[in-house]
C-alpha cells in the first residue's frame, strides 16, 4: 500500500476478467483486491482498455524505489523464465542417461515435477482410480484466465496512469500497433516525468513477461510430454508445465542466486 493512502501502489484493471489470482506478477493489485480505493479506477477508461495505474507516494526517492524494485522484479522473472527450456533439456538428458537422483539432490521445481508426473502416471495405469483425481481443475481455470488476459491485451489498448503524491501527472495510451499518446500535466519537472516513464516501462514489461510466461508454459508442455512414458498421460503435460513454471518463478533459491550474480 501507498503510505498515507488507502490505494495500492500499483493497480490493474480490466473489465472483462474476473480475477482468481491475488495479483499480477506479484506487483499489480487487481481492482477486486482493492478494498477502499481513493476513487474509482474504472472511471477513467472504457471497456476497450486495460488500465495500469501507479499511485506513488509524495516522497520522490520512495516513489523511485517502488518503480525500480518492480522493474527489477520483472527482469529477474524474465531471466528465470528464459531458463525453463534449458533446465528441462538438462533434466531429460539426466533421465536419458539413467542418472538417478533423490528429490533432495535436485532443484526443488524439478523434484516436484518428477514427483507429480510419477504419481500421475502411476494412477493412470491403475484402472480402478481416476486420473482426474490427480488433476487440479483449478490449474486449468487459472491457465485459461492467463490466456484470456493475454488475448485481451491484443484486443485492448493499455492506459497507463501515474499519480505522484495523489496528483495525476501523466496518462499514456499504447495501442496494439505500439503507438504512444501521452498527456503530461503542465509544469512537470524532469524527475516527475521520469516517474511516469518508469511506470510505463513497468506496465509494458509486465505485459511482455506475462506473454513470455505463456510461451514458456507452451514450450515446457512440449518438453514435458517427452518425459511421459505413456500416451494416456499426455494431457498431463500442460498442468505439469504450468506448475513447473510457477514453481521455478517462485523458487527463492534461484531468485537469490540471480540477484547475487547481478551484484
Amino acid at each position, binding site marked *: 500500500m501507498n503510505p498515507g493512502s488507502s490505494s495500492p501502489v500499483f493497480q490493474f484493471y480490466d473489465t472483462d476478467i474476473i480475477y482468481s489470482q491475488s495479483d499480477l506478477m506479484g506487483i499489480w493489485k487487481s481492482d477486486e483486491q482493492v478494498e477502499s480505493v481513493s476513487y474509482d479506477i474504472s472511471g477513467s477508461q472504457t471497456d476497450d482498455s486495460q488500465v495500469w495505474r501507479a499511485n506513488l507516494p509524495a516522497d520522490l526517492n520512495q516513489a523511485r524505489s517502488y518503480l525500480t524494485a518492480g522493474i527489477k522484479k520483472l527482469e529477474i522473472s524474465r531471466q528465470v523464465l528464459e531458463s525453463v527450456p534449458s533446465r528441462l533439456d538438462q533434466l531429460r538428458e539426466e533421465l536419458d542417461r539413467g542418472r538417478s537422483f533423490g528429490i533432495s539432490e535436485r532443484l526443488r521445481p524439478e523434484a516436484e515435477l518428477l514427483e507429480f508426473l510419477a504419481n500421475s502416471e502411476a494412477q493412470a495405469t491403475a484402472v480402478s482410480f481416476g*486420473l482426474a483425481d490427480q488433476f487440479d481443475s483449478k490449474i486449468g481455470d487459472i491457465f485459461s484466465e492467463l490466456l484470456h488476459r493475454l488475448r485481451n491485451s491484443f484486443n485492448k489498448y493499455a492506459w497507463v496512469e501515474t499519480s505522484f503524491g495523489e496528483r495525476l501527472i501523466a496518462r499514456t495510451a499504447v495501442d496494439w500497433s505500439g503507438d504512444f499518446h501521452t498527456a503530461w500535466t503542465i509544469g512537470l519537472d524532469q524527475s516527475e516525468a521520469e516517474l511516469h516513464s518508469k511506470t510505463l516501462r513497468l506496465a509494458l514489461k509486465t505485459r511482455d513477461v506475462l506473454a513470455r510466461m505463456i510461451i514458456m508454459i507452451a514450450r515446457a508442455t512440449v518438453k514435458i510430454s517427452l518425459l511421459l512414458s505413456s500416451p494416456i498421460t499426455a494431457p498431463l503435460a500442460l498442468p505439469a508445465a504450468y506448475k513447473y513454471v510457477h514453481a521455478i518463478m517462485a523458487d527463492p533459491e534461484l531468485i537469490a542466486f540471480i540477484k547475487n550474480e547481478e551484484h
Partner: protein
Amino acid sequence: MSSMDDELTKISASNGINASTGDYFFEPETIDEIAARAARPPLDQEHIDELVEHHQSKSFAVVPWASPKNLSETGWGVIFPAGDDPTIRKIRDALSELLDHRKEQAGANKPHYYREFIGDDGYYPGITKSAFLQKYGATYSSADPENVPYYLLIVGDPETIPFSFQYQLDVQYAVGRIYFETLEEYASYARSVVMAEKGMVTRPRRLSFFGTRNNDDPSTLLSSTMLISPLAEEITKLTSGGALAAGWQVETLPYEETKKERLVRLMGGADTPALLFTASHGAAFNQGDPRQLKHQGALMCQDWPGPKEWRKKPILTDHYFAGEDVSDDANPLGMITFHFACFGAGTPRRDDFSYTSSREIAPHAFLSKLPQRLLGHPKGGALAVIGHVERAWDYSFKFDKTKRQTQTFTSTLFQIMDQHPIGAAMEFMNGRYAELSTAITEYEHSVKQGKQPDNYELAGLWMQNNDARSYVIIGDPAVKLVGSEPSAAARPTIEPVTVTGIVITPSAVTTESTPVQPTDKEEEEKIVPEAADFGLFSSLKESKEGIQNSLNELLDKTKQTLSRVLSDATSLDVLTYVSDEMETVEYENGKLKGATQLRAMTRISADGDTIVCVPRTGGRMDTELWQVHKDMVDQALTHRTEMIKTLSAALAGLVDALKVL
C-alpha cells in the same frame, strides 16, 4: 464431338491419370464452371496486387547491382519451421556441411548475407510472405540481401510450411524446398551439393528430352508435339549457334522408347545426363488409396497402353516410374531434372483449381517421393528437381487453343545450361505467373468498364495463372549444373554419411484435424487411451479441451495481431501533449481527447524515414519537453521490437504445444 465438346476437351487437358481407376484424374469441367470460379474474388488480393505491381514495374528478382551468379552479392538463407522442436536442430545439424559451405560463399564479404531463419526467426503457421519479409525490413520491391537473402531454401514439409508461402515468396526471391524423412537423406543431400560445387562431380554435358505419347491420349499428344519437339529444336539451335558453351548434346528420345526401363537408365543409370526434361502424365491416386503417399506424382511411361485400351482398370506399377524405382545402386549425383507432369513435385491437401468446393484430395500436403529419392540418394543425390504441384495443364505451353508458347521453358532451360543457379533460372516461370495475374486483373477491369464478358478468355486466364504458379524447385535454389565435360566418364559417388538414422515422421500437424495415415504403432497408441477411457479421464479431458480451445483462440488472436503489426502498421507514432486538467484527458478512436495541447510528434515510417515536430516555447525549443518526448520515442521503439519478438515466439510455442496436447 460438337464444337462445345471440343472446347471442353481442350480446357480439361491436364496431365494426370487416376492410377487408382485408370481414368483421367479429374472430371472435366465446363468453361462456364471454371469462369464462375475465376470471377470470384481471388483468395489473396494482396498477393495478386503484388504480382501486378511486379509485372508492371518489372522489379522481379534480386537488386540490379547483385549478380545472380554470385552468392556473396545475392545472399543465401535457409528457413526452418519456428519453435524449439529438437528435431529441427537435428535436421539443421545434418545439413551443416551445406550450411557451412553457403555461409562461406554468401557471407564472404558481408556476414549478414548468410541467414538462418530458425527458432523464433523461423516460419510459424499462418504468417504471410509479406509479414515474414516485413519482420526483417524487406518490402515488395526487388530482393535486397541487406534485409533478406535472394536465395532461400525452405526446410520442411508442406503442411508445416505450406506451398502457398513458397509460391508467394518465389515472386521476388529464388526459393527451393527440401524435406526428407531421415536425417541421413538431409546429410547426403548436403554432401552431394557441396561435392558438386567443389568440382568433385562431373556429368556428360547432355540434355535429354523424355516425352511420352500414349495411344489415344490427347494430353501427351499435345505435350510431345507442342512442348518436347519445339523445345528440343529451339535448344538445339541455341547450342549450335554458339549461345551456349561448346559441347552440349541435345538428345530427344523417340516416344516409343520412353519406357520405364529407359528412365531407370536416365535417372541414376548408365545414361544419366546433366539435365533431364520429361513430359508425361503424373500418376495420381484417390484419397485413401494406399499407394497415394508413395507413388503420387510418379511419371507415367510409354508402358501404359493408353486410356482407350486401359480405361477403368487400376494403373500398374510397371506403367510408371516412382521414387522406389531409383535403386540403391543408382547414381543420380549431380544431375538436375525438370518434370512436366501432374503432382511431379507435390500434392496439396485440397484441390487448387476448385475454388468453390475446395475438396480434399489427400490426407495432407506432401512432396512426391521421386524428387525426394533423387535428392536424398545414399550414393549422392540429384542437385534439384523442378516439378509441378497439383495438376499441370497444357496451358503451360499453348495459348489461343492451338498456338504454342514454349519460350518460358526455353529460357529457363537455357539459363540452367548457362550455369545460372536454378532459382535465378526459374525467374522466367515466376514472371509468367505475374504476367498472367496482371492479365486477369486487366480483364476484370475492362469488364467493369463495359467490355462483354468472355467466359472462355476468363477461364483460360484463370487456369493458366494457377498452372504457372505451381512450378517449384525441390532442392537448394542456388545449385547450378555441375562442371561438365562433353563426355565425362567419371561418375563419383559421395562418401557415406554417418548421421544416426532417426526416422523423421512428416509433421503434417496443424491446428485443424489432420487425418494422417497412421502407422501400426500410432494406431495402437491411439487405441490404448480410448480402450482405457471408461470415463476415468472425463474431468481431465474437459479441462484439456477447455485449455485447447483457449490456446486456439489465443493462437488466432496472436496471428491476427502480428499480421496487423507487421503488415498494417506502416509507421510508429509518438505524440506528446500537455494538459492543465489531466482528469479530463481520455483516449478515443486513436486520439487523446480533453483539455490537451499537442506539443511534439515523431512519426517513424517502416522504411526508416522520420518526421519530427519539435515543441517550442517563446520561439525557442522547449528542451525539457523535448527530452521527455525523446524518452517516449525510445520506449516506443523498444516496445515495438519486443512486441514483435514476443508475438513470433508465442505463435511458435502455441503451435508446438497444441501438437502434443
